[in-house]
């Protein structure tokens, strides 16, 4: 049924080259690589300031498809202009080379998806733009030194939410971008994780059948900002899924379905303990209340999912 049943089915073609200056073990590279494997060479890659901009520093680029760099808040608006421009060349001027049929993907970090670029993204979804929007979510402004963003989870240390003087770190809740997008009734929305490659590949593949906005938010481990060793990237991402903190799901025209439903959740602290950004929850004293708060929120989420989806 699914096109990709195991990693054996991963397409061989690579549209990302090695040799970029991105940090060793960066999650955004894994996502970009597999995304382009499924979308293919006929893709225009729109990027904005953020970690992945490091892929393309003159005179080098790691991206092997046409690449357009936009200002921080304009990723989706630029996708709209490119797509419309190519469409009108086809429709009005009768130009029909292969490039006018290229897909457009906007690949941005959480700052651009949740915060500064949210307005333009919302508007592009509203206009039903036929494009892919993929957020590599490392839960902070990683490229500028890991400051708080709308995607930063409760209690995370960032360089603008230091756990000093008894503070818990970030006091705000992470925005639920999946639900915000879903309220737009986009044809296809999915969460993905660097740990679940075939799930990711199948979701990109499935998205192809829909005309209109296809939106992805990917948990993208940031060893540098999160304070974790590089080799842990995949293990941490898997723990995020298995503790229930990062649900894998999709929504087709608003109808939600989880693509992985854990029967039993691992305790969230197994995930939190892997990263220095949560270290103050455990050292020098254990902040029981805050850990409990995170655990309870995850449990109440899954209780609803178990009730609705498992009973079907």
């Amino acid at each position, binding site marked *: 049924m699914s096109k990709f049943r195991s*990693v054996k089915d*991963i397409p061989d073609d*690579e549209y990302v*080259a090695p*040799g970029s*200056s991105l940090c060793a*073990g960066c999650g955004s590279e894994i996502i970009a690589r*597999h995304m382009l494997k499924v979308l293919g060479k006929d893709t225009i890659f729109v990027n904005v300031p953020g970690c992945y901009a490091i892929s393309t520093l003159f005179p*080098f680029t790691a991206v092997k498809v046409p690449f357009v760099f936009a200002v921080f808040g304009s990723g989706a608006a630029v996708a709209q202009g490119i797509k419309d421009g190519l469409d009108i060349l086809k429709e009005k001027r009768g130009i029909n080379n292969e490039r006018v049929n290229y897909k457009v993907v906007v690949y941005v970090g959480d700052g651009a998806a949740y915060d500064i670029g949210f307005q333009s993204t919302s508007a592009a979804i509203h206009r039903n733009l036929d494009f892919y929007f993929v957020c590599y979510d490392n839960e902070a402004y990683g490229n500028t030194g890991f400051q708080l963003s709308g995607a930063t989870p409760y209690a995370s240390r960032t360089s603008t939410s230091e756990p000093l003087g008894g503070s818990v770190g970030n006091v705000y809740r992470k925005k639920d971008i999946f639900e915000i997008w879903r309220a737009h009734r986009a044809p296809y929305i999915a969460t993905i994780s660097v740990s679940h490659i075939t799930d990711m590949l199948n979701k990109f593949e499935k998205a192809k059948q829909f005309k209109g906005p296809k939106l992805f938010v990917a948990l993208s481990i940031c060893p540098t900002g999160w304070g974790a060793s590089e*080799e842990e990237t995949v293990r941490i991402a898997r723990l995020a899924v298995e503790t229930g903190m990062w649900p894998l799901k999709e929504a087709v025209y608003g109808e939600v379905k989880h693509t992985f439903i854990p029967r039993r959740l691992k305790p969230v602290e197994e995930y939190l303990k892997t990263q220095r950004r949560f270290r103050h929850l455990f050292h020098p004293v254990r902040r029981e209340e805050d850990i409990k708060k995170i655990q309870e929120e995850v449990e109440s989420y899954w209780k609803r999912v178990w009730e609705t989806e498992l009973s079907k």
Partner: protein
Amino acid sequence: MYRFRFHGRGGQGIKTASRIFGTAAFLEGFYAQDFPMYGPERRGAPVAAYVRVSREPIVNRGYITHPDVVLVGDETLLFDPVADPLRGFSGGVLFVNTMTSPQIDISGELVTLDVTGLALEYIGRTSAISAGVGAIACKIAGFSKGTTMEAVERELEELGLSEELIDKNLRLAEESYRNVPSFDLDSLPSVRESDYIDTNVVHVKLDEGYVGVATIAKLGNTAVRRTGSWRILKPVVDLNKCTGCKICFAYCPDVSIYLGEDDKAYIDYDHCKGCLICSSVCPFKAITMVREVKTL
């Protein structure tokens, strides 16, 4: 004026080393200026930091292209074309952090010490060399041990290190300080040379069409960059254990694993940055990590 340039890899604390030296110079009564290379610094990628020290007020700014003293925190950088730590170095003092005794053909003085080894011994981490390299710079400049230790303490306190960790770093600094010589910097030929670099200005003309438009026409050309030199640890595939399951291939962020004709995993050491995700995901424990043997 003495011009010091520090080279290292992102995450090694080279910037902190330069700040230790800058603060020590200030404490010694010098005019001082310290600053890091500005750019997207990435863990493992070559970075640099700069310090100017002078008895007179400093009326210069920006990168130091002609250093009197170069400190290299990672010896693999010595011949890295991007880092190019010997650029503009013409007869001063070169310090290299190394466990071997490298033969480097330079005019000037060569000082070496295995700071990485000392860091492992005193702190338990190979990458925490900032206090050591900072103290070595101080010793080379002939600063007193007292100011050196105070500078180390001040800078590490500012970073928010625990008292215990600062103590360990002080021991590393002391040991490093003890094991290198001092120099009379005023006697170095480069110091007596002018700080002014002679260049010729050319006439820039319009390049019509899209030559002058900022684009890249060779997509994927990062492949010519050898990010393999970033590695501190190196993944090694045991081909007897490898089943060709492709899991390591799937998770490699840097497209640096490929399957050979025998369907086994091979690592592209020219590009592998040494993140070791492959080793951690291998279900058959076929990929082990070994310390990168750094030879010159």
